[in-house]
């Protein structure tokens, strides 16, 4: 029982983790992309539709990644090349993604989808208690953890990562150093989109293999909150994602057990928890100020 709960917590946390990890890199480069929800839902419908029509789940996953990155490219073109307001453009991306996915997905409502199977690592997955949890998950669970390690390594142990952080902390100095600020940000934004697309595919191919309009249900926004919660540090995102996975699964189990609390109140717990967490984090103003990329959300036009 406990083991199965822990496994479902991992499936609830993984999409949050993947999407938040992408957004973390974007924000570390000084760009605030509020379009995570829109890119995620586009990833969800793309992954579902491509998997269903081609019969290959992996093709669906890759298509979702591509579409997520392509959507991010629209955002990048507007905010980086046309220097539009990042908050408003991110909102536009979310609204457009929700609308377009609803339109494209109409023919797929109610159709049974394909599920990405889990992989069993021989012997290890037969270990008592932790076996299934650590070694018998779906492939994207491992991808999410590898992604975290890779992002942490990239940001803090490589030259390119240092450049990206420099761009995010002070784009004028980075420009003066000869770093191509706009190019770095384009790459970061597209990486963020790819991650959001993958997270969306996870929802429609692993978490609940079907297409439902608005099925992301605010997860893109929760991912954004997780980045703040983690004060822009990769491993803390893992902690945050699993905390939220825990809240989500906990309330689902409470609903199933028929706790005498209205199911709607239980369903609203993840959203209320997000608000609570944001308040707790922001109360410590010095910590927030210290960790926020200093150029976050500021437009940059190279002077020539």
């Amino acid at each position, binding site marked *: 029982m406990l083991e199965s709960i822990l496994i479902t917590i991992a499936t609830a946390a993984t999409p949050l983790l993947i999407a938040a990890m992408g957004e973390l890199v974007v924000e570390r480069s000084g760009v605030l992309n509020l379009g995570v929800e829109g890119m995620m839902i586009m990833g969800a419908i793309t992954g579902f539709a491509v998997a269903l029509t081609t019969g290959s789940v992996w093709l669906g996953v890759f298509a979702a990644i591509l579409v997520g990155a392509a959507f991010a490219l629209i955002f990048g073109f507007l905010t980086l090349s*046309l*220097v*539009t307001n990042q908050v408003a453009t991110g909102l536009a991306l979310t609204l457009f993604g929700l609308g377009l996915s*609803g339109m494209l997905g109409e023919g797929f409502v109610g159709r049974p989808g394909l599920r990405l199977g889990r992989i069993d690592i021989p012997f290890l997955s037969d270990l008592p208690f932790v076996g299934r949890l650590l070694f018998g998950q779906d492939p994207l669970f491992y991808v999410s953890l590898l992604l975290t390690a890779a992002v942490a390594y990239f940001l803090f142990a490589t030259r390119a990562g240092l450049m990206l952080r420099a761009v995010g902390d002070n784009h004028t100095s980075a420009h003066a150093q000869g770093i191509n600020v706009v190019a770095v940000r384009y790459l970061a934004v597209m990486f963020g989109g790819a991650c959001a697309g993958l997270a969306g595919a996870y929802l429609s191919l692993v978490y609940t293999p079907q297409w439902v309009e608005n099925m992301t249900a605010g997860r893109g926004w929760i991912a954004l909150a997780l980045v*703040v919660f983690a004060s822009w540090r990769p491993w803390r995102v893992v902690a945050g994602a699993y905390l939220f996975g825990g809240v989500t699964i906990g309330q689902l189990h409470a609903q199933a057990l028929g706790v005498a609390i*209205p199911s709607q*109140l239980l369903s609203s717990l993840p959203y209320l928890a997000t*608000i609570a967490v944001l308040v707790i984090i*922001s*109360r410590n103003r010095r910590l927030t100020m210290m960790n926020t990329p200093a150029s976050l959300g500021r437009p940059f036009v190279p002077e020539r």
Partner: protein
Amino acid sequence: MRVELVKRPQRSALFSALSPFIALLLTLLAGAVMFLFLGKNPADALYYFFIEPLLETWSLHELAVKAAPLILIGVGLSICYLSNNWNIGAEGQFIIGAIAGSILPVAFPGFQSPIVLPLMLVMGIVGGAAYAGIPAWLKARFGTNEILTSLMLVYVAQLFLDWLVRGPWRNPEGFNFPETRNFHAYAILPEIWPASGRAHWGFVFAILAALVLWFVLSRTLKGFEVKLIGQSPRAGRFAGFSRSRMIIFAFLVSGALAGLAGISEVSGAIGQLRPAISPGYGFTAIIVAFLGRLNPLGIIAAGLVLALSYLGGEAAQISIGVSDKVARAFQGMLLFFVLACDTLIHYRIRVSRRLVAKPIEAPAGHA
């Protein structure tokens, strides 16, 4: 060849006026391409989408019904966005306004008097403002990101409404449908010209609100304060304006208007509470605010345009069989084009054929 942006010395008045129209034109073009991909004749589709709904009186009334909440919420949001407060939870404030305003006709149906309707409107306004007060207070007190908190509260409001209409407020004579009892006659917001169509007084409230806020923004010190704090918080501080008071003010005004929109919609157009009372008005109003260039008078026009896109979606579904979801995609696309065209206000686009790097110039004046 390279394309680059050159900052204008001052904002272009020409493109300030022109950019929403360029954006609309580009959206229509993109829409035509989209219909082509859907296998429909683009000219037909655009006709059914944007012209046909304007040809009949009843349909013009429907336009006013849909434009009322969009304009009410949009003008409120303009105060927020001008003062750099990102309230994106108007959908939630709309719902809570509708719920608060419905307390009298739903929970006290025996209380029937001409005073019920004014009380409902006031309660709707208070409810919406109070709900917007939560993210405002959290931002002013703790510096909590208002974008995320206001949005999270939308989901909470939707779930709360869902619980009410399925639980304590379900119509006792309603055969278990998830809806409240129908409002009694004193609780209905009247139609403007009952003889010709459904448009209710909410549309009049919307126009009045836009006019009042236009006056406040362009002719009063408060309006100056809103814009100054938005453009330069530092200059605002020197002028003695309080940033945290502005946060509260902007959120309360926009929440109050969203709440008024909510109760007007429920009491004027629907006549009861249901699990879903808004086709995303609170989010579409964000597009309305930007298309109207955050100017209340512009927002009236923008509200009508986006109301037309809702109607057009329904009309196109009936006449040429495209999904009414096309409208949502259209609306999102429109916001992209609006934002992209706004670039022309602040920047010139220079296309140069220079291939060799320009020699470094002596720094002119300040660096």
